[in-house]
């Protein structure tokens, strides 16, 4: 296995997921790993769940996200907008779809790679990795050489060097970055369906385990179509604004 496509935070955005999967195919990724939050926020939970299930049946791997878990956990800790969106989502999924999304593991380990939705430390607490200090606990609980997570919706990269220091690294979209073996790495992958770094482009990451290179990819998608559906569904207007601005 050499080329991993890492997708996360699809958030029921059909147009974004379609654009990303096209890009994944064009860049000839061989494996797909999805870091959770297939639903929540977006207007197409049924289609996205079915699509992800088909991918998993074809060999992709999936971990649990906090929005997916909230489908069967009414006490889940979500902000007001997220709660309204998940309440809207719940009746749209049938029992099999819900069961598929919620039965996924919190973490996946493959060789020296670890896949998880939020911080690897206490992964069911859904801690956001947003700084070197917040990245440190993940390195402490895992000996994986590369940890991939999502949840933040902003692409970031952290390194853990031989003397134990954690540093944030500049992320340059589209440039292959060598994950040099003298350090361990934590890659926060940007969101497919709801980017929050000021660029309204769907995000994903390509990791080539032979070249040992990580590339943060961004793809344009038809935001207007998703926004129109969001509004037609009566979902909160702030979610529509967010997709337009990518922030």
């Amino acid at each position: 296995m050499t080329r991993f496509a890492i997708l996360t935070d699809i958030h029921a955005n059909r147009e974004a997921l379609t654009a990303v999967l096209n890009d994944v195919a064009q860049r000839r990724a061989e494996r797909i790993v999805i870091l959770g939050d297939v639903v929540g926020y977006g207007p197409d939970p049924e289609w996205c769940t079915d699509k992800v299930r088909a991918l998993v049946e074809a060999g992709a791997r999936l971990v649990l996200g906090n929005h997916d878990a909230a489908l069967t956990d009414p006490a889940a800790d979500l902000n007001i907008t997220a709660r309204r969106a998940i309440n809207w989502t719940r009746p749209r999924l049938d029992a099999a779809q819900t069961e598929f999304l919620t039965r996924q593991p919190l973490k996946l380990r493959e060789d020296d790679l670890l896949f998880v939705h939020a911080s690897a430390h206490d992964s069911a607490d859904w801690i956001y990795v947003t700084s070197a200090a917040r990245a440190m606990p993940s390195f402490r609980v895992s000996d994986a050489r590369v940890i991939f997570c999502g949840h933040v919706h902003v692409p970031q990269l952290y390194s853990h060097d031989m003397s134990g220091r954690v540093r944030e690294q500049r992320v340059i979209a589209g440039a292959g970055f060598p994950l040099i073996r003298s350090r361990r790495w934590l890659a926060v992958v940007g969101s497919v369906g709801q980017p929050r770094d000021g660029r309204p482009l769907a995000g994903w990451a390509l990791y080539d385990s032979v070249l040992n290179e990580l590339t943060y990819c961004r793809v344009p998608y038809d935001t207007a179509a998703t926004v129109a559906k969001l509004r037609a569904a009566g979902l909160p207007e702030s979610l529509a604004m967010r997709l337009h601005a990518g922030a």
Partner: protein
Amino acid sequence: MKTRPQSGLQIDGFTLGDKLHEGGFATIWEVTHPDHATPMVMKVPKILDGDDGPTIVGFEVEQMILPRLEGVHVPRVYGIGDFAVMPYVVTERIPGDSLLLRFRQAPFAISDLIELAARMADALHDLHSQQVIHLDLKPENVLQRPDGEMVLIDYGLSRNDRLPDLLAEEFTIPMGTFPYIAPEQYLGARNDPRSDIFALGAMIYQAATGKLPFGKPETLRRVRPRLWKDPVPPRALNPAIPEWLQEIILRALEVDPTRRYQTAGQIAFDLMHPAQVKVTARGLKLVQDNWRVVWHRWRQMRGIKRFAAPASVQSQIAKAPILLVAVDLSPEMEALADLLRDNVQRMLVTEPDIRVACVNVIKTSRITIDSGLDEAGQHLHVARLVGLRHWSDGIALGDERLTFSVLENTDPAAAIIDYARHNNVDHILMGARGHSTTRRYLGSVSAQVVAEAHCSVTVIRRRSSPAPMPG
């Protein structure tokens, strides 16, 4: 690091031979590998069993940057070692010593010096074109291939604009080699390719005079005076140095990066066109600036924290391109030549730092054996130069940024392509004659240039009105 290098050690298919060199931070070994017949060397850092931060990070940087470089001006990489076992980099072995030994013989004869300097500038331009700033240029980091091309080695302090800068985040003290370090690099900047231009200027100064422009400071504090104190003019140390060469050296050594050459390609270009270097007070001076001037500069510089850096290496190179304009001066092509000039003028608006090389080709006969110019040939050459200058009237560009060359070749397209390659030209602008059946079968000069040039080519053609329909 669990394994230590020694003769006979086998690692990842490589077998270590003799130790070739032992430096302060690394050892160099001769290595062989059954899959590679080329002579190779392995560099292994001397990482002490403790917290040896700078050596480790420097080696991480080299492992990141070196494998991504390509071309004749960098060593080719054959293997990278894992830090968990033994970190190393295996590259091709460039025969011979670095320029360090050769520089002990400086000053060099002027013609050798120009050749050496131009080749170093070419190598540096190639590196910058790959978005890498070396940041530790010095004679010991330059090797020469048997065919003459220079190879830049040791990327432990370098920066690739497209990769994170592990050194910048780690250390706040400036890093570099004191005799060659640029003022902005001394102030901590690691993102300006013009820092390498300064170091190149210091090396050319050294090759021209046998002396270092700012001596050999032992401490960082003693580096600081180069912010206001100018070096002894090279011609005061070696009267054989022409004014134009001093102009080039001192321009590369300007304190403010914006007053230096903006690309290494432009230094190489000037070294190849000495007659067209515009000599200013810089090239003429024979003594250092007087104390008043130095004092004034000290007042300006004493509080300075940084100089403005370019947005990226790529933008810095793109901002100062070299444009080759191939001008056909034959009378029937006058209208096309005018159109060409209009296009050049339009480009000056968007590219204020552009250099324009106006080129005309005299097509020589294949039968002529001697290339030495006869009386008539000489006249033709001069007439074409005069014609080129006349054509350029109205191009609003200072003399120093406009050059004129008349080339001679049996194959005009080959002459243009060759000139472009050897002068780091970024863009060729030329005219194409109208359509004709003969040209369609024999091929045109512009078509050949478009097909074979290494850079962008824009072809200008006069709009022709459609031929009347027959019948």
